[in-house]
């Protein structure tokens, strides 16, 4: 019986010739990264193991992204503890302001085909865009990985999702993510591996692909992998001969193969409560908003800022709306500054915050008062995530930007035209 990409990676990392769904194996980790939200507990738990060394400091990264730059005195203390621990063991710290853990791992070239990557962020799954097995784990489990370099994994069944067609005018990768979430619901893919492929991917940049794989977590996936094509290899400045690229066998076994045609897709909005509450923008158009945000690992890449700038160029944000933008890495900020996108957004009245999880984490940047409504490119919209009583709608950067102009949820297709670059 042939193997899927996920099965091949697990077999390789467990040093086995083959594996079967359901089997539990002990696998070797290639990259482990820890952020400042879960790091404090990892440190505390690791310190309980007497006379233990970090298995391989060169494979471990700390990233200060959730409370960045230190947003409270307590967060400052946590950051200090992390820096001291990292110094003691010779581990790299990606400092405050660098960005969100997994996009930073992508930019720095640590996400590579065939690797097994674990991160303390649930959205680590997004790194599967690079043809690796990337998944999120908790703090204590990470302490175990630091001590041993190993993790137990149960081999998941794989489901294949084929994305066909080309995105219509004004429709984004984020809309594809919200479509998939709507289709599968919050737990239909629990514990499953997903392989995504199809024509659509050819049209998408690595970051746009990540916007989709990251959101896979919200339907429960253990990991999501995409094909390693020229787009990925060029991004990594490498070629196939230098990487461990796995492809699924022809007779690989899938729990299911599902086809989606995105050719007729409309801008999507997830209504408050769950990211899987997708509706077309027309169904909620006119809903009054107090805040609009671009933020999170999945919703504040350069392309998100660019798409928002194309909408707001030469216009002004509605006076009763706060338009809060938290780019997901420092390189996004630099690039947006170089291309004029940042100036366009600022001139329209947007607020730019320093790179971090920002409004997605929802407790330190852009919080909501009870009864307030926010439309956001972030990953989650559970009750109270940006503050008790606040309501969150999820949408693409275009839909968020158009809504920021009008003060209510707005179809972005009526606001497109013109060039966002320069002034």
């Amino acid at each position, binding site marked *: 019986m042939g193997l899927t990409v996920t099965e091949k990676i697990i077999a390789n990392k467990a040093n086995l010739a083959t594996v079967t769904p359901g089997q539990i194996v002990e696998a070797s980790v290639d990259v482990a990264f820890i952020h400042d939200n879960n790091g404090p507990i990892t440190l505390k738990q690791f310190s309980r193991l007497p006379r233990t060394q970090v298995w391989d400091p060169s494979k471990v990264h700390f990233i200060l992204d959730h409370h960045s730059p230190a947003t409270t005195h307590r967060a400052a203390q946590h950051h200090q503890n992390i820096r001291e621990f990292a110094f003691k063991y010779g581990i790299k710290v990606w400092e405050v302001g660098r960005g969100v853990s997994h996009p930073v791992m992508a930019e720095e070239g640590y996400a590579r085909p065939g690797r097994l990557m674990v991160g303390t962020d*649930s959205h680590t799954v997004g790194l599967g865009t690079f043809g690796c097995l990337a998944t999120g784990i908790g703090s204590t489990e990470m302490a175990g990985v630091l001590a041993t370099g190993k993790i137990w994994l149960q081999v998941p069944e794989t489901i294949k999702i084929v994305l066909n067609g080309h995105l219509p005018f004004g429709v984004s990768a984020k809309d594809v993510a919200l479509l998939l979430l709507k289709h599968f619901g919050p737990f*239909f893919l629990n514990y499953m591996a997903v392989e995504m492929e199809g024509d659509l991917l050819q049209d998408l940049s690595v970051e746009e692909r990540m916007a989709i794989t990251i959101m896979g977590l919200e339907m429960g996936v253990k990991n999501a992998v995409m094909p390693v094509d020229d787009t990925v290899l060029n991004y990594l400045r490498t070629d196939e001969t230098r990487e461990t690229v796995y492809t699924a066998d022809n007779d690989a076994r899938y729990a299911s193969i599902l086809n989606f045609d995105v050719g007729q897709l409309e801008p999507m909005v997830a209504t408050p409560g769950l990211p899987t509450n997708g509706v077309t923008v027309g169904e909620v158009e006119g809903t009054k908003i107090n805040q609009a945000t671009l933020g999170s690992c999945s919703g504040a890449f350069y392309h998100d800022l660019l798409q928002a700038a194309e909408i707001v160029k030469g216009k002004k944000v509605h006076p009763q709306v706060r338009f809060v933008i938290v780019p997901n890495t420092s390189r996004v900020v630099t690039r947006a500054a170089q291309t004029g996108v940042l100036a366009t957004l600022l001139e329209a009245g947007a607020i730019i915050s320093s790179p971090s999880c920002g409004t997605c984490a*929802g407790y330190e940047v852009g919080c909501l008062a009870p009864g307030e409504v926010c439309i956001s490119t972030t990953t989650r919209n559970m009750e109270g995530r940006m503050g008790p009583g606040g309501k969150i709608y999820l949408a693409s950067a275009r839909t968020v930007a158009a809504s920021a102009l009008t003060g209510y949820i707005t179809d972005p297709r009526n606001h497109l035209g013109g060039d966002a670059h320069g002034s």
Partner: protein
Amino acid sequence: MAAEEKTGTGRVWKYGDNISTDHILPSRFMTQVEPHELAANCMAGADRDFAKKVKPGDVLVAGYNIGYGSSREQAPQALKYAGVSAVIAKSFARIFYRNCYNVGLPAISCREFVDEVSEGDLVEVDLKEGSITNKTTGKSYHFIKPPEFLLDYIQLGGLIPYLEKLMAQGVKKERGHTCLSEKLLVTSDYCRTSEVGKRKSEKRDRNVPQKIN
């Protein structure tokens, strides 16, 4: 403190589907690491009075997909520190399931029990036997036991004491090489693709976590 395989008799607190980690421990409490702080805010996003009502040994019961969302381990820790002795649900989100065992809190999937139990019932869980007894109704239920090494986690109090023991003994023991059906391990209602239509037609309200009793 080492947990036992058998919990004492505990009262049931029952919630609905998709109780997320944002419900169990809202993100605004995430810089907290002390046990008493986590316990005091346990379930704050779903039920503000939970932390005051819960007694040591009580059992948290939920529908599908408990622990949905973020990887925060503070969620199962808060439950544990608040005194919860086991979480029994129709299914679990992946990271939450692992986090429960890693902190020494049994996570058990048993759909029939969840369907039939009422809030306030007194129940006893025997993890080693794979059984739950509802002492209020007198009915017993069986669930698929977790693999041996996870039972060890619970007996010892979590992943760290487990590793500590292995390291002290100089044992290089591999977890794994067990073949279990994953669906049996983490979700009692694993749905195959052929059941997509069926599940949609059930029209269960998956949108709002609600109490289901």
